[in-house]
């Protein structure tokens, strides 16, 4: 059996996310339920893509498919050059741990691990076995999100904003080219949400990460290079705002 250390060889693509007519159908109580209908996404490397839409529009399903947690029922889906349809569960896990960072609306830190351990865990999952290097990197990331003095606290001892900052540090821990964020400011107040938006902006500006964010937050939408609007599982519109950024 292959080990966690294995990494999938990924070609350098122009598109980080390339969906062509992707549909997803579930069976609920024996009846088919269409969650996504012929979605086409083209998210380039280094872009921030905002996926907006009302609840139940299919935003989280899109993230699930990008992360390789679910496979499309129809259509072609390539993420960082990897054909998701043709990959098995094991290679998708290895792909995820090496190439994708996840930020959740409800933070979802591992409850039994401290802030720094949550970050370090991601490095272990990515197969980085040099514990000295991992510790150093963890301290850097924890410092980057401004939580050095809270590093040895459990998630339950941290506020929502602090937990989300740990989640961002964790999402960056394996230095992934692609970060997926599922309504990252959804559970936070205005001020704390703004801190998170700033942190995400730094990910794009300083680290050159590709960000795919599902959100209702206008501040994140404003930051986006491309905005996908989902309506009842279908792509309502694609907007590529042209603006000058400082």
């Amino acid at each position, binding site marked *: 059996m292959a080990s966690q250390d294995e990494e999938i060889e990924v070609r350098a693509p122009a598109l980080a996310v390339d969906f062509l007519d992707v549909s997803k159908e579930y069976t609920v109580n024996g009846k088919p339920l269409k969650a996504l209908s012929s979605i086409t996404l083209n998210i380039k490397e280094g872009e921030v893509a905002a996926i907006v839409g009302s609840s139940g529009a299919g935003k989280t399903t899109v993230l699930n498919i990008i992360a390789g947690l679910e496979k499309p029922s129809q259509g072609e889906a390539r993420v960082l050059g990897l054909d998701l349809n043709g990959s098995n569960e094991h290679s998708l896990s290895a792909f995820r741990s090496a190439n994708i960072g996840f930020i959740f609306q409800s933070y*979802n830190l591992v409850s*039994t691990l401290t802030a720094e351990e949550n970050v370090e865990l991601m490095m272990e999952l990515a197969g980085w076995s040099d514990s000295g290097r991992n510790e150093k990197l963890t301290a850097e990331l924890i410092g980057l999100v401004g939580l050095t003095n809270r590093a040895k606290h459990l998630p339950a001892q941290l506020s929502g904003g602090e937990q989300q900052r740990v989640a961002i540090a964790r999402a960056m821990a394996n230095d992934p080219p692609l970060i997926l964020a599922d309504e990252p400011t959804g559970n936070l107040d205005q001020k704390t949400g703004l801190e998170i938006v700033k942190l995400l902006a730094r990910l794009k500006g300083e680290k050159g990460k590709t960000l795919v964010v599902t959100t209702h937050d206008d501040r994140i939408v404003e930051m986006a290079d491309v905005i996908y609007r989902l309506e009842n599982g279908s792509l309502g519109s694609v907007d590529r705002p042209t603006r000058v950024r400082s």
Partner: protein
Amino acid sequence: MEVWGALIGPLGFAAKSLRRRGFHSYLAFLGLTLTVATTTFLLLLGQDLATRLGIDSSMRSTFGISWLIFAYLVLALALVSIVGLLSSSYLVSSMINQRMRDIGVIKAAGALPRRLLSYVTFEAFVVIFSSCFVGALSALSIYASWSWPSVSLFKQVGPVPNAGATVLIVVPLTSFLLCYGVASVRVRRIVGSSSVNAISKQLSNLDLKSLGKPLRIKRFGSAFNLATRNVSRDRGFNRTLLSIGICIFLSMVVLSGALVSADTSTSYVVRAMPPHIIIVANINIYNQYVTLGTSFSGTTPIPSLDYVNESYMISPQNSSAFRSIPGVETVDTRLITMSSITGFVKAHFASNQDTGENINTQIIPEVDTGSAQALIVGIDPSNAIGDWYTSDGFLHSNDAQYTMIAGDSLIGNIVQMPLNLSQISAFGFRYDVKSALVDPLNAGRVLYARVQTVQQNLGVNGYNVLLLKVNSDPAVLPGVTRLASSYGLVVGSQDPILNSNLAFLNATWSYISLIPILALALTCGIVLSYLATNFSRRFNDYVVLKVLGANVWYRLKLLLWESWGVLAISMLIAIPVAWAVSIFFLVPDPSISVADLELSTLLSALALSSVSVASATIYSRRLGLTTVKDLKP
């Protein structure tokens, strides 16, 4: 508010809450039902075995060995009951703990504590009552199909009338009362605590002492590191470890106790009737001796016989001739006879029950304890073949002339405790009772005295049975046979008698082995419930790991380390302690087959490890089906 209450009501609340929890509700119900069903079935099986083996009334074998079997059954069933009740209460406690957050939320939303208490308690009542009811019905169905067509719930076992029916009512009822009591106390405590504490249960479940000290054991990898951190920071870990440890310990006592008791009872028989012994006697006495020897395992009545008939006697000179055959190591000269005996308790000073001191002013007169037919064996203590298990040693050459050793089946009726106050009247003479022994001969209704004394009492000069211990030289047996033929005697091996008795014992213990096997199965079920409960509690963390990229193998390793690690620690402590208890405290003068104990330990470890592998695999598969949508806020 009232309309809402009328619409929902305790039953509606329970139904909605249980339906919403889905798999976890099913798990709690299943765990409790299995525990109640298995405990009830085991106790039904135990009373059935006791009835079938006739342990409580007229069992074959001897009093000592049937007492050993009965004592084992009682102990095993008592331990099984404790395991069942302990695990039921743990499962209920865990089930209520899982509702802690919901209770806090409902309370924070403004629910009246009394109403909340009644709603949640009713929900627990529904689960517990249905589990106990279904468990009892399942136990009855399994028992009925197992013992069909001789199903009887109304036989008396020991002091318990209608034992089966009693078990069927008492066990589920006790389980119900205990579980409901535990649930009520837990719910009361949670409802009584502040809403904030109840809502932020995550923190209350974690042990903060070990923070900042991550374990780094590189050899076992990341999954092991994470598992140790998860387990060591879980406040419930010690409680889980203790509960699992106690269950494993008790079931191992039941398992190893069965092996030790079986080996010991076998050794009692083998010590009284060693293998490779040759019997030399007149054909009629020989046949009688075989019947007496196999009365332990058979039901053939002992025919009457004139044991001291002149033609059956072997003179001292003839018996000496056997000693002179090369290869004959020992000649055990015996004079056996069946006689009516009467037991007495000598007149003695009354003693203080607590201190044992004599109360010199009060004399208790001699008491006649009754009469019975018993086999009296005159034996030469210095050449006796046999190493009986005795309470105070066998006969010695320097014992008083009128001294007897009583077989275990005479103890408690003809021969009363303490033995130093007991006397036996035989052949018109009074014998003191020195000791008691376990002997399959005449099913334990036997008395050993010095052969010269018996000869004097009966007025004969000779023996009627010779037991010969010979070496392995193949020429010895033909020599013995030739000499015996010349005296008109027959020669036979004692081995068929021994084998018949051992086969009977083996069959009895094989029958009883159902109890330890099912006790182990019960423990496996309980361990499965414990592990499932713990996995359910941490399921969200596992889903996070999966989403972050932990592959199937990593997740399986994590679950395995978490489950098997706890089990391994429990087994490491519980199994040696159970061995020690079984060996040193369960039976007197125990005999242990190390291979049997090793096998039982291996089997238990394998069974329990399989449970951990199974539970880890089940949860790993469940994890495989989860996505981000399954993460709980």
